[in-house]
């Protein structure tokens, strides 16, 4: 018959191992910051920044977007629109570059998703073109 002290020692060891495993996983690389660069705006302007995104209806603005973890590594990234009928996000052949297509006048949000977690949300507006008539 095992003594209570042996059982207690095993229980303490198991708890210690579990705590150690949790500690190790909690110390993995995490999202650190987002870099937006190489913006190209339309003939009627636009904006792509962490504060806001703006594109005229019927036109395209593009930007290079990279999200970094705290190990200075670029993270896999998904950029998506909450309403593609207003603003659609399309990949571009150039590395880590995205095209934002103004489909219809309105407001929506753009989400940056890294490692299955939403890391940034940007308010996005598609503006009307000035009347040309």
């Amino acid at each position, binding site marked *: 018959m095992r003594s209570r002290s042996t059982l207690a020692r095993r229980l303490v060891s198991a708890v210690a191992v579990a705590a150690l495993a949790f500690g190790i996983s909690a110390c993995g690389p995490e999202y650190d910051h987002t870099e937006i660069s190489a913006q190209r705006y339309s003939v009627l302007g636009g904006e792509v920044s962490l504060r806001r995104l703006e594109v005229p209806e*019927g036109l395209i603005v593009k930007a290079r977007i990279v999200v970094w973890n705290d190990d200075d590594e670029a993270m896999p990234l998904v950029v998506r629109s909450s309403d593609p009928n207003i603003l659609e996000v399309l990949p571009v052949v150039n590395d880590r570059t995205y095209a934002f297509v103004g489909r*219809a006048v309105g407001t929506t949000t753009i989400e940056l998703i890294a490692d299955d977690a939403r890391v940034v949300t940007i308010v996005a507006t598609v503006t009307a073109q000035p009347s040309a008539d």
Partner: protein
Amino acid sequence: MAMRSKTASTLALLLGLALAACGTNPESGSPAYKAGELGNGGFLFACDNGDGVACLSAESGDAKKFPARIATGATFDVRFVEKNAQGTVVGIDERRYSGVTTEAVAPFIGRGGQGFTALRPGYGTIVARDSAGTIVDFATLTIVRPTRFIVYRDSDSGSRAPAPIELLTLSLGGSALVRVVAADSMGTIAGSIPVAWSRGTDDVVSVEPDEDGSFRLGAGKEGSAILTVDGAGGLSTQFTVVVKP
């Protein structure tokens, strides 16, 4: 066997190079190209030249110069060329993108005619995308609403500012070849717009579609007639034809 395989490979390479040298695209740097905004190639403009359309003949087939303005309601086509490549497979940064086609971004440009239709005045976008939906490049087009038609002599073809006909004199039994293009106060505007002709006086002059988007006006009998050219959006132009013996 190895020698035959090597010879066949060499011949295939030489044939490929020869075919590439016979490509039909304008040379790099030609004004026919509108550079893509991503720097991955250029776009070429083509005008639909079917019967009964208005189109500046300088832009028949691939335009020698990509037009600065396209008329609302006009049909046209745009194709993408990646740095003198041919076909629908594009190579960028050592990656290949297949099934590249051009698409319009609504609502200013839509599908129509042999390619696209300019739907609203303003700025519209044509994108080149591969079969996976990745954007290879894109271009912005300026769309303006025309205010009139210009009817001009076919001999003025190639001019970007053809002289409008106000009075055309024909000899009995003779004919003249004319063309029609959309325009506004700033000049001619590219694109094909279907037109309809009407004659004020029967039998003085006949109008028949001719080759490549032109119209042949034939002298029927002595007299004068007012010809009217009508298009979509209430666009209309008139001029006088006089037939002399």
